[in-house]
């Protein structure tokens, strides 16, 4: 049973489309399943003969449970039977077979399902209309004649939300609003602006709109970012470590460069360069976690998070570890401009091995960066703040500090080595800002 949304714990298997003995191919529709919001086709992920249906029609099936066995005649399928389902469900199983199942997990199957935010837009079920079991049950409990309702499910099927809408009271449509609904496929709000809440032609709106809000489909780069972010937060074990560094020597270094007539470098450039230096000492942080493999890279391809008009982009400075501070600074600038102007090449947006993200200029003190998988580390940079510092002789003074937040994938690396990397980074920024990594290596 596929998961149909974040909060869906079970689905009702409303109708079987196959029976034991049928031959099915990958992609064939096996059954119709339903959440409280929509119906879906359950498609086969395998080809072969239907050996057994583990659930009866109208059963409430927990997500990720096996629902059907498909294979070759005579195969042993005992291991596939899910807990909670009738162990030897007959081809025409009795309805509500779950209470009979003598297993420890039976109670989880029977539990009521909380309303969910399941995706209702992907309904592909067409032919039969009628009333869904879930809707019928609710209608009966509330004294609504579900047969008289016009459903919004596939093929006009009455589903649970139709009962809810009926009870909430759908507005009457004006004559002109009705024509617009019919001709342009528009939808009425819960309450219209006309007489006694009648929906007028001007109230009609695209299905899925929300009152008081501009609704736009999620597409393009926003969709990509959304997918990547969910992948990141769902697929990795993120741990964030916070630290900060004293800015005094960085400022002095920058001032000296200007005095010496050298090119200008930013604090961000110095932090990027310090990352490269620290990765020389802790190369295990410059890696991709690939589930069953861990790839530790020889060179650092440094990703830089850029706030572009189209959304967050992360251009990559390829082989940054080979660059001088001047070159690194100029490359970062070039890539950021390309992102903002929309001229960035697709190749420059992939292949990163470590990412730097900076929100300091926006007044952020601290934040927890989100990993850019399969990378295992990302460094977040906050703004400058004045903090007390005790010197070696015990004197307390105030110094400018910048906070650093390192998020790691705990699947790939532990907290202590990550903390050591952060320590090296801070030490470099406080003592050797802008200095070539080779020099530090030589020192150590």
């Amino acid at each position: 049973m596929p998961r149909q949304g974040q909060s869906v714990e079970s689905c009702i298997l409303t109708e079987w489309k196959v029976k034991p003995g049928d031959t099915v191919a990958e992609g064939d529709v096996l059954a119709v399943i339903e959440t409280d919001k929509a119906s879906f086709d359950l498609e086969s992920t395998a080809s072969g003969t239907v050996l057994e249906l583990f659930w009866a029609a109208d059963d409430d099936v927990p997500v990720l449970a096996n629902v059907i066995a498909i294979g070759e005649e005579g195969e042993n399928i005992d291991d596939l039977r899910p807990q909670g389902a009738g162990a030897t469900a007959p081809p025409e199983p009795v309805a509500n077979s779950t209470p009979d199942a003598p297993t420890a997990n039976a109670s989880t199957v029977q539990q009521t399902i909380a309303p969910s935010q399941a995706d209702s837009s992907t309904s592909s079920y067409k032919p039969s209309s009628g009333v869904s079991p879930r809707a019928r049950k609710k209608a009966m409990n509330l004294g609504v004649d579900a047969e008289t309702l016009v459903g919004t499910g596939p093929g006009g099927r009455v589903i649970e939300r139709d009962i809810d809408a009926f009870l909430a009271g759908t507005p009457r449509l004006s004559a002109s609003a009705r024509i617009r609904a019919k001709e342009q496929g528009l939808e009425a709000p819960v309450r219209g602006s006309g007489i006694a809440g009648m929906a007028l032609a001007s109230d009609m709106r695209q299905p899925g709109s929300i009152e008081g809000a501009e609704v736009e489909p999620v597409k393009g780069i926003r969709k990509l970012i959304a997918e990547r972010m969910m992948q990141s937060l769902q697929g990795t074990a993120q741990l964030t470590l916070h630290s900060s560094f004293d800015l005094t020597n960085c400022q002095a270094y920058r001032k000296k460069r200007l005095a010496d007539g050298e090119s200008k470098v930013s604090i961000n450039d110095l932090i990027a360069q310090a990352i490269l230096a620290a990765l020389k000492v802790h190369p295990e942080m410059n890696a991709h976690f690939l589930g069953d493999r861990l790839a530790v890279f020889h060179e650092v391809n440094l990703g830089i998070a850029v706030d572009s008009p189209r959304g967050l982009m992360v251009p990559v400075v390829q082989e940054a570890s080979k660059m001088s501070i001047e070159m690194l600074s100029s490359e970062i600038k070039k890539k950021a401009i390309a992102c903002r102007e929309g001229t960035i090449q697709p190749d420059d947006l992939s292949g990163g091995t470590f990412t730097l993200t900076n929100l300091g200029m926006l007044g952020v003190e601290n934040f927890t960066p989100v990993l850019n998988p399969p990378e295992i580390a990302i460094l977040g940079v906050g703004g400058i703040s004045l903090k007390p510092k005790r010197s070696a002789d015990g004197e307390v003074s105030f110094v400018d500090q910048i906070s650093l937040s390192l998020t790691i994938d705990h699947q790939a690396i532990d907290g202590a080595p990550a903390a050591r990397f952060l320590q090296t980074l801070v030490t470099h920024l406080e003592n050797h800002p802008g200095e070539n990594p080779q020099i530090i290596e030589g020192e150590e």
Partner: protein
Amino acid sequence: MKYDFAVIGAGPAGYVAAKKAASAGLKVVMIEKKKLGGVCLNEGCVPSKTLLQAAKTYHHAKHGSIFGVEAGSLSFDFGKAHAHKNSVMDRMRDGIAGLMKKHKVEVIEGEAKLLKGSSFSVNGETHEAENILLCTGSSPSIPPIPGIEAEHIVDSTGILNIDTLPKNLVIVGGGVIGCEFACVYASVGVPVTVLEAMPEICPNLDSEIAAILRKELEKKGVTFQLGAKVESFEGKSVRYNLQGETKDMDADLVLVATGRRPNVAGLGLEDIGLDFDPRGGVKVDNRGATNLPGLWAAGDVTGQAWLAHAASRMGEVVVNNIKGQKDQMRHDTMPAVVYTSPEVAVVGLTKEEAIERGMKVKTGKIPMAINARYIAENPGEEGMCKVVLEAETNRLIGVHMVGGACSEMIFGATAMLETELREEEIAEIVFPHPTTSEIMKDVFMAVR
């Protein structure tokens, strides 16, 4: 005292809102500095309609010969007409007082002043109310013309207290109020001259409808000077400029009817930080909410509509919103009437207004004279019905009528607009025969 709802002003917005709120169980107080009923009952709708009916009755008696009715010695006693007017007003005021008593609305006579933080003072006492409705109405707006202070020059409030007929009447302003009084006086034989600055009377009306009204009033003896700008009053003489030419005429009585302005002074509104719209009215959204939480406004004080029924509806909308029931004004479906003979009744957009909004429109118009009932009852009187439809959908968006007692059928057009009926649906509505209302069905034959 602490109230749930305080209403400042007992006009058609105020007493309707007070009654509605009290029926919903709120503790309501209504403050009025003059008389219950507001401008509508005391200085506007009700007295003027009583006098119009007096004039109409005289006119029918005088011109009954076409029906074979001859009234031998006909006379008109304006004093008696005024006495009837006063009795109607007294009766209506008692009605409102009774209604307030029945619904347990406390009525305080006095002048209210708004204070900060949902409180107000009246007669030296400070009260609080969770919600306050400001509906203080409007007053005639008097233009700064030299000599306008003279005693024989009155506004629409003043003229209602003069119960003798003048030798002649000059009306400055050919809007709704000017036309109604022109009709009263001309119908009973007083020579009336209307000086209107614009090229046509009632500039808010469809121009064809306005022209028919003007011609019908001319038949009754009203002289219209269009494009006439009054420059000064000297003694009994009125000096005006007509297309660059200075003219003088004598006036026994002058009515200044150049519009109204919202009553916003002396209420402490500036001190509490209330927002006004550019026309000087209290700024409200389509629910009647002002920029201050808990303070609402309805009726003429908002500078919108200038109609008693609009004010009542605005009051209702405010109370519904206070009760938590969503409701909003729909000014596009607000009917308006000129109670002259013949009457003008309109609802919705004119063709020009619709085009200005970027709509594609179709229109249709037919003379009232094709209607059997109309010509039987209104011999020799011109009339017209005009409809405006949205071209793409055939939705009815405007109805404009002049003729007979068309005010009595405009509500039907309002219902059609409110429910957004299209030509196709209206075609299935049955109109009783013979009625003047059939014009509303027949006009669609002329739509193109």
